[in-house]
């Protein structure tokens, strides 16, 4: 058994090399994870604008949050984004992964091509899509006009703006999920398909009864990662719309950013951050339960 005395003895002995190896991460963890987390927990009970001393205000940040319409609006916007983005992302990624998992020519090229947006800067991609979506002189509306159709208010209509951002985010991130699906697909034993074929199962039935259930762990990972990524939605609305029109693209992260860095409300921003973290935890737990129940054979 290793008690404190045993640990001290081991530290005192020459067996300290491993601790030195762990030290860089321990320092990193303390500086960039543990300390900020602890500090933001303290901030939750304070009003602080960075430059003047902190003021203890008890639970008033929570009191404000409960009555803050913009908090609920940002939460609703984020959930709207997730509802569009996650299924779209999963479906597109799965479809492309199935395609790339076949023996098509130029498979390596297409895999690299789909992954390219993932490694391009988010701001650069967003500015590019801003040009595509522009109402008056955007490329997409130019094509629509040339085809004799009317322009679409991609980013200037409150009901269109968030779906437009979800489409863009899907294009940007789909590459990484294609890779995850490809890993999942290549781990499915071929024998299962061979046996199903011998039993007369057509490709759709094979997909439904073999591929999907076998991809369940991958789907769980993708949905969880997409959810966490979706709750982090920031660059796209920040650069493209500033949260408008009519706050329809004000995401949770953008609202936290505005409170912290536009209005210098560090304590309130920390409170919003904590509540969002709890919401993410609840949503992810719910998703895991639902996916496990529905897809497990």
């Amino acid at each position, binding site marked *: 058994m290793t008690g404190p005395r045993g640990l001290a003895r081991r530290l005192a002995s020459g067996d300290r090399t491993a601790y030195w190896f762990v030290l860089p991460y321990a320092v990193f963890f303390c500086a960039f994870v543990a300390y900020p987390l602890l500090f933001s927990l303290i901030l939750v009970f304070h009003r602080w*604008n960075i430059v003047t001393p902190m003021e203890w205000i008890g639970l008033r940040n929570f009191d404000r949050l409960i009555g803050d319409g913009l908090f609920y609006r940002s939460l609703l916007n984020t959930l709207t984004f997730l509802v569009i983005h996650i299924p779209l992302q999963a479906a597109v990624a799965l479809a492309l992964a199935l395609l790339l998992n076949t023996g098509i020519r130029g498979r390596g090229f297409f895999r690299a091509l789909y992954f390219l947006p993932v490694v391009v800067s988010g701001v650069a991609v967003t500015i590019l899509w801003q040009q595509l979506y522009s109402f008056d002189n955007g490329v997409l509306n130019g094509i629509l006009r040339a085809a004799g159709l009317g322009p679409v208010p991609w980013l200037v209509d409150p009901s269109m703006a968030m779906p437009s951002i979800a489409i863009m985010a899907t294009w940007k991130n789909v590459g990484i999920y294609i890779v995850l699906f490809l890993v999942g697909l290549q781990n499915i034993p071929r024998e299962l398909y061979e046996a199903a074929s011998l039993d007369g199962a057509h490709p759709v039935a094979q997909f439904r009864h073999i591929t999907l259930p076998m991809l369940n762990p991958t789907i769980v990972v993708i949905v969880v990662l997409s959810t966490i990524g979706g709750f982090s939605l920031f660059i796209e609305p920040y650069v493209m719309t500033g949260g*408008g029109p009519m*706050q329809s693209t004000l995401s949770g992260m953008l609202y936290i950013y505005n409170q912290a860095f536009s209005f210098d409300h560090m304590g309130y921003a920390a409170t919003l951050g904590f509540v969002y973290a709890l919401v993410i935890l609840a949503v992810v737990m719910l998703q895991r339960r639902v996916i496990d129940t529905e897809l497990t054979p």
Partner: protein
Amino acid sequence: MDVTPRLARRGALLCILLVAWGCGPRPGTGPRAASGIELTYWPAPNPQEIQLADTLVRIWNALHPDIHVAMQPIPVSISTEEVLLAAIAGKTTPDVCSNILPAALHDYMQAGGLVRLDEFPDFDSAMASRTPRELMEQFRAGDGHFYQVPWKTNPVMMFLNRRLLREAGVDSVPATYGEYLAAGARVLAHPWPGGAGSIWLGERDVRPLWWQRLFDFFPFYIAATGGRTLFSAGKATFDDSAATGVLEFFRACYGRGYFPHTYFSGGDPFLLEKKATHFSGPWEVAAIRKFAPQLDFEVAPIPVPDGHHGPVYTYGDYKNISIFSTTAHPREAWAFVRFLVEARHDLLLLSICDQIPVRGDLLANPLFAQYFRDNPAMVQFAHQALYTRSTDAVPDLKEIFDAIAQEYEACAVYGRVAAPLALRDAVRRSDMIMEWDR
């Protein structure tokens, strides 16, 4: 012998010396005062104001060899207010600063950063000789005292492109909402060579940016109420008929197609002669002079509700002077502030910066006559300067303006929310912010 600790000690000593040297006064600010009185003065960091400050400091240092003033532009950051708050926290504020936004005064006072100016025995007489009482009163702080000297104002007024309006058949300056909207109908109906949508009556930034409302909703509200601002006795009171009228006016401008819903990113559409009217301050005159000298323009007060009587007030966009409590020489700092606002130095402010000093005798004092003869476009601003209002000195004004900007967008730009409802929501949010701030 192990030399590492010694090297480390030497390195640390060198660092301390470098930091100490870096925090010292900047070179090139003239000879030092023999008696050792040193004042630091921070002007705004734009080229014109740096030139003005440099000129004024040179004159002061020549006249006062015993009190040396070192000029250093405010360090460039996102905003002056951020820099000053950081400086207050670090106790590194200058003795005097001439870029004080009245709206930020509350934060500076709360941080204990400012010297009370009305404790100087000659404060009242100095102010009375320069600034009309009515203008002065709006700068009285919540505790009943003065912490700032009103220095300059940039009244928001209406610029008109005379050529475009003439071509559209608008012969007189639209002074009321009704006249302005009638002008809009003419501009919209005119067959412009570039086709429909090439020329607009006006344009405002459609993005819900809080500071953009300082150039539409806020001055129009001040004008419609005959000089009232958003708060009364610390309470938001702008959910009234005047504010409803302002929102409905802008809603009509967008709804009837007189203003575009597009954000122009290719330059100032007024300078590009794509819009016939523009709401801006005197800096626009310098921009026209520089970038569009051919533009045939005039300046007029912003439109008011039909049937409005009395003078037309507007937002003044003030920048004032304050003394920070870190000063070791408050009396000398006050003498320097008085020097900055002398009439001949106000003339320098006009001629170097094209900005309006907050003084009542601009058009009566012969000292300024030549300037206004040379710059006739500035005469309107000098007239207007007497009818200006600042922002309210309440905490979190930025977020309150953000709340107004959101409702302005929903009501005026997109026409989705009725004006009274939009104002009710904006006031509710303002109340919530104010309550949280208490």
